[in-house]
Structures are given as C-alpha cells and as structure tokens.
C-alpha cells in the first residue's frame, strides 16, 4: 500500500466518521428538544411511537418523522426561482457539515510499528491525527464557513419569491452579519492568547492543564470571549432567542415557508447540525475539547489499568442502577391512572392499534407498558453483563501486552469526554430556547452592535495587555513548535 493510498483511505475514513458523528447526534437532538421542552413544561412529551411495544422514551418518534419527510410529496411552487431555491437547503446543510472537518475529536492514535508495517505497509509506527483537515487557519476556516451558512437562508428567502420568506431571509442576513463581527472579536482574543489558529495546537495547549482551558486563560479574556462566542453562536444557528428568521406569528414560517419534504428536512437538520458544530467548536476553543479534566492522554496511557477499573465499576453501577429502576417500573403510574378511571369505556378505543399493535398482541398478553419495562430491564441488565465482560476481556488483553488496544481505549474515553461536552452545549441551546422569549429585531441589533462589538474590542485590548505582561502566556508561545 502506497503512502498516498494510505493517506486517502485514512482521510476517507475520517470524513465518514465526522459526518456520521454529526448526523447521529441530530436525531438525538430532535428527541432531546422535544422531550426537554416537554419536561420544562411539565408534560410527558413524545411517547406514542413504538416498535413492538418499545418506545424508548419517545426516541422512536424520530423514525416515523424521517419516514414521513422522505416520503412526502416534494412540492415545488411555480413562482420560485428554481435553481437557487433548490440550492439553498444544500448550502445550509453542507456548510454545517463541512465546518466540523477542522475540529479534532481525540488525541493521536499511535499505531505500533509492527502492526503498521505488517498491515499498512508503512515504515515505523503510524500516528493518526483524529481530525479531518489539519490546516493552519483552522479557526479562520470555522469563521469563514459559518458565515457561508447565511447564504443558504438568504437564498432560500429570496428565491422563494414570497414576501414572508424574503423578510425571514433579510432578517437572517442582518443578524448573521452583526453577530459574525462579535464572534470574530471573541475568536481574535482567543487566538491572540493561544498564539495560533491551528485547532490541534490549541488542543495540545489545553491538554497540559485544566488551567490552560480557553475559558480560564488570561482571565477574564477567555471568559468574556466565551460569552461573546456563545451568544453569537445562538444567532449564527438561528436559535432562540435570536431565531428571527423563523417567525411563526408574523412570517408564517420564515425563510422555509415554501419548502416541503426532504428540502425542508435539510433545513431542519442543518439547524441541529449547526448546533452540534457550534458546540464542538466551543468545546474545542474553551473547554479543552476531548480532554478529561486533570487527566490528559499521556496519563491515560500510563494508567490504563486504573482507567479500565474506573470505567468497569462506574459503567457497571450505572447499568445496574438503570436495570433496577426499570425493574421497579413494571407497574406504571399510567396504569394506576387508567384503573382510576371507573367509567365505561367505548369499545372503539383499543390500547394498541395497527399492524404493530397486532404483532405485539400476537406475541404478548400483558399490557403494552409492562411489556416495555420488562424489555428495558433485560436490556440494562444485559448491558451491565456485556460491560463487565468486555472490560474483563480488555483487561486480560492489556495484561498480555496489546498497545493498540490501549490506544483504542484512550481514544474512546477521550471521544466520550468530547461527546459529553458537545451534548451539554447542545442541551444549552435547547434549554435556552425553552426558557427565553424571542428578541425583537431592534433589541437584537442593539445587543449586537452596541454591546457585544465594543465588549469584543475591549476584550482584544485586554488580551493584548495580557500578552505583554503575563509570562505564563509567553511560556505558552514558547511551547509552540
């Protein structure tokens, strides 16, 4: 295998992984959005769709949603400007996906020389960077790409040839342009402090200590930059409280009024993909990315046995706890409520309907939810067993000396840390959305131009002052190869 081939294959694998990463989180976010909204509003949220009785807390709802959106008729209104109209959702989605390519999601994987030479035909060990594009201007690339996202929305609004959509698009453009600046100010302060725009370098700097995490750097420069960046991210993603392009009340739906079927789905997914990307970049810039606090990659590699024990005990306890709760829930409060209703019940309402229900009935005779909780108990108990088994296997293999396995465990652990940070960021998006009301247009502009931009400028000044006076920062500069 030639060097080029290997590079191409590795690049492809990483591309697929990063795409899959974003796209897998999207349905999860849709679920989280619905369920989170429901819980914030004291209601159960989606819980109807099921596969043979298993509803997985409403997660299954995404499946029929996807099915519905794919199979719906693709309505093309006669009055739209077709080429741009068709292009707009593609821009939105692809920009969101492409941005993720510069975000590193883990430390290097060091493939030992004997394996690399044997299977991959390299000379010596192979270090694989866990990042699709390892480019110098990583941060600038992020800024560039996110600002492209506005084209999707603007073009959608304009080409729809519809005054509501157009206003939606215009608002989006105005808002993006304003907040792009604030975001840029925040990022400038950060790369002044880091001294680089390479994201992998920024990660390396943060790996050293938790004190090197962006948000804590050169206080309060990091914190202020984070706030500026994070608030701007909301606007960039068109999320509440800055979701002016979508005004249900005044704009019908906003820029995507004329879209249906899969084209609408693309906008819909782009919004969530944007959230994932924004969270990833934030985590990378300010929260140490894939780093576990106080524990960097080298420490993980060194104490792999302790890590295994921690994962084994922690995960096992979690799974057993989940199983015990599921076991306790076989008698659902739902049934208590059902039995409390002591009235006659018309025959036309059956607890389970459709083919799915018939299948379920053919298999079982207990009630739907009892059945579900039984399955959950089994799943969680099985997961606990599998967990212990796998950890045991891993321990035995490491004891017999398998460095690649160590690498993989470290990778998975770090990836998990990254995912947790990203998901928390996404939850912040959801959380804020269901807490705050929407800004008025003038308030939005006020905030962007009158407050955030000056604060960003002052922050840059502050960062510069820190650069001059702080030896520690200078030391960081020195560490850059």
């Amino acid at each position, binding site marked *: 295998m030639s060097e080029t081939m290997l590079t191409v294959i590795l690049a492809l694998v990483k591309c697929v992984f990063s795409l899959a990463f974003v796209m897998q989180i999207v349905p999860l976010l849709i679920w989280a959005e619905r369920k*989170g909204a429901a*819980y*914030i*509003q*004291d*209601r*159960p949220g989606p*819980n109807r769709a099921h596969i043979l009785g298993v509803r997985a807390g409403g997660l299954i709802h995404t499946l029929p949603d996807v099915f519905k959106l794919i199979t719906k008729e693709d309505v093309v209104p006669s009055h739209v400007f077709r080429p741009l109209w068709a292009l707009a959702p593609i821009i939105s989605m692809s920009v969101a996906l492409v941005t993720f390519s510069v975000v590193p999601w883990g430390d290097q994987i060091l493939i030992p020389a004997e394996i690399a030479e044997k299977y991959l035909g390299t000379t010596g060990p192979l270090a694989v960077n866990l990042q699709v594009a390892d480019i110098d201007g990583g941060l600038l690339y992020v800024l560039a790409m996110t600002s492209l996202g506005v084209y999707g929305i603007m073009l959608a609004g304009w080409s729809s040839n519809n005054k509501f959509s157009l206003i939606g698009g215009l608002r989006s453009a105005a808002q993006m342009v304003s907040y792009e600046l604030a975001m840029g100010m925040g990022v400038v302060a950060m790369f002044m402090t880091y001294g680089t725009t390479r994201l992998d370098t920024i990660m390396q700097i943060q790996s050293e200590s938790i004190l090197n995490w962006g948000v804590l750097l050169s206080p309060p420069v990091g914190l202020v930059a984070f*706030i500026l960046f994070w608030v701007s991210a909301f606007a960039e993603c068109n999320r509440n409280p800055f979701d002016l392009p979508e005004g249900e009340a005044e704009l019908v739906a906003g820029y995507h009024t004329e879209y249906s079927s899969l084209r609408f789905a693309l906008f819909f997914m782009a919004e969530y993909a944007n959230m994932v990307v924004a969270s990833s970049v934030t985590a990378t810039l300010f929260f140490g990315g894939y780093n576990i606090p106080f524990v960097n990659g080298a420490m993980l590699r060194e104490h792999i046995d302790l890590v295994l024990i921690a994962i084994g005990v922690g995960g096992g306890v979690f799974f057993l706890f989940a199983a015990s*709760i599921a076991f*306790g*829930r076989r*008698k*659902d*409060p*739902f049934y208590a*409520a*059902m039995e*409390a*209703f*002591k*009235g*006659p*019940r*018309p*025959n036309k*309402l059956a*607890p389970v309907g459709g083919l799915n229900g018939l299948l379920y009935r053919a298999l079982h005779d207990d009630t739907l939810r009892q059945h579900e909780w039984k399955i959950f108990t089994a799943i969680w108990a099985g997961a606990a067993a599998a967990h212990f088994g796998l950890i045991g296997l891993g321990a035995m293999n490491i004891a017999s000396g398998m460095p690649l396995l160590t690498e993989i465990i470290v990778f998975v652990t770090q990836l998990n840390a990254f995912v947790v940070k990203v998901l928390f960021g996404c939850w912040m998006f959801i*959380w*804020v959305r*269901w*807490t*705050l009301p929407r800004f008025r247009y003038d308030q939005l502009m006020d905030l962007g131009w009158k407050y955030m931009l000056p604060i960003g400028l002052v922050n840059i000044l502050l960062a510069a002052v820190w650069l001059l006076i702080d030896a520690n920062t200078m030391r960081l500069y020195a560490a850059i190869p």
Partner: protein
Amino acid sequence: MSDVTPAIKKRKLNTSESIYLVEVLKGMAITMGHVIKNIIGELKGQSTFDTMEYPEVRKPVNDRFKGAHRLTTRPDGKYKCVACMCCSTACPAKCISIVAGEDADDPIEKFPVRFDIDMLRCIYCGFCVEACPKDAIRMDTRIYEINAFSRQDMIHTRDYMRDLMAGDKPEAEQWYRENPQHSPEGFLGEVPPVIP
C-alpha cells in the same frame, strides 16, 4: 382628556437585570428545576406531569355527566323504547326522530323502527332522559368524544346507541331481572290473540 390612553410606565431595570445574563441564568435555573423534578418523578414512577395521556387515561367525569346517548334493552334483548316520542317532544333542539313500528309477537306492541339522534344538533340538555317513561334512553355512557368523518355518521342510529355500551350492565336491568313482577311484562298478563 379621557380618551388619551395613559402611557405605560416601564420599570427601570437594576444593574443585574440590565446585564441580561444574570436574569437569563435565573430563568434557566427555573426551567432546569422543572426538568429535574420531572425526570426524578419518572424514575420514581410517580408522574409529576400536568397532562393526561388521553385515550387511555381519561379525565374522570362526574356521575351526572351527560355523555353520548344510549338505548337500553330489556332482559330479552329488545329495546325498552316503545316509541312514545316523549323524548322527541321534549327535545328543545328537535334532534330526535323516531318511526314507530308494531311488534306483533310482543305484549309491548310498539317499538322504534328507527330511532335517530342527530348529534350535531343535540345540545346535551338531557331532557330526553328526563322525559322517558321507560328508562329507555340514558346519557350515562360518559362518552364525550362524539365525532365522525361525515355529517351522516353523526346521526346516531338505534342499533349504534344500543351497542355503544355492549358488555356494560346497568343496575336497573339487573334489578328488573331480580324483580320480574315489576318488569313491564308483569302488568300485561294473558297474551291475547294477535293481529295478523
């Protein structure tokens, strides 16, 4: 000048309020509090939701609740209704239409050939139930979702109203079965020759 709307005085925001972030965080604490409360409730198996999971769980209605009408039957399965039309006379919405027929094999000669209630017109006043001398129509089904895909289907017919509560045995029928001397048949005595 009475027609001038007084200006609404805005409260002046204090310092922490004017920096939105603190208030935002307060609000987020409240919403997160709800999330945590609900998740704990779910895990403990004690629902903390305000909503009801409607078709399966229903709001318990009062015993006097007037739901969809049903027609009761005698122990032999025939309608108690004798098509006396007291209900349609009492009905203020004029939504009951009855066609009477003659049952030659029964001491209670009259029965409803058709008994239709136009539920689109019905105002659920319950006068029909009050007017009925035979306890033949009741509104005790507690069914409040009365809906259909066509106007035609909103007209509840005789057999539909009988089968609405299939399987449910009201107390009065049980009572009649246990006290046959008080059943309507008890008064009639000898079966006479029947009109051909």
